[in-house]
């Protein structure tokens, strides 16, 4: 049973690696080749409705984006606790259900707090 892997066993992994890389490389090369190319100085300039360029291209992004991204990370990750719970749902029984309700309740109270703080107001 405990026979060691022989190198050929890694073949599927290797093939998938090549396929994945190959796809990216191919698409990049193909897009460059397929489209027509006409370069000119005007065209390479940053362009904004005929008005000459002012200031930095990297305009400050509203802090809202960061906040939402950060909140997403936080709430998103909590899902991982639901997988094992779901798998063992039957064995855990009512207690498990109540515990998950408590867990979700805590999460939701956090969510409510975020809303009350006005983080999600999109103005």
């Amino acid at each position, binding site marked *: 049973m*405990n026979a060691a892997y022989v190198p050929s066993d890694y073949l599927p992994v290797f093939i998938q690696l090549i396929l994945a890389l190959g796809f990216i490389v191919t698409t990049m090369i193909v897009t460059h080749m397929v489209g027509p190319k006409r370069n000119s100085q005007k065209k390479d300039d940053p362009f904004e409705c005929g008005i000459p360029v002012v200031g930095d291209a990297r305009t400050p992004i509203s*802090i809202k984006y960061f906040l939402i991204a950060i909140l997403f990370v936080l709430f998103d*990750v909590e899902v991982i606790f639901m997988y094992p719970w779901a798998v063992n749902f039957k064995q855990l029984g009512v207690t498990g259900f109540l515990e998950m309700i408590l867990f979700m309740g805590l999460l939701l109270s956090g969510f409510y707090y975020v809303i009350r703080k006005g983080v999600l107001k999109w103005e």
Partner: protein
Amino acid sequence: MQPTQQVLIPEVIQQIPLNYYLIFSTALFVIGIIGVLTRRNAIIIFMSIELMLNAVNMLLIAFSSYKSDPTGQVFVFFIMAVAAAEVAVGLAIIVMIYRNTRSIDIGALNKLKW
């Protein structure tokens, strides 16, 4: 080790020797450390730290599988959740610094010393 648990873990996983996992994780971990040591961009340092954490996750799962003991995997969940919290706070701090100094180069941050 209880036999019932042994059923839960597919034996096929144990075909790669545990040492490989150990060495692999350690390598990943050390790469993370080196990243922390050599980079100056706060975000990249932070990513290196995440790499270290993932190396630990990897190791824990390997041990967990080989011991047919789910505790290790539960720990991984905790690490992931906590890492998310760290990411949230860390990004917030980095954004705050960027807003104040227009830079996230840690080399510029040495006002506090001596």
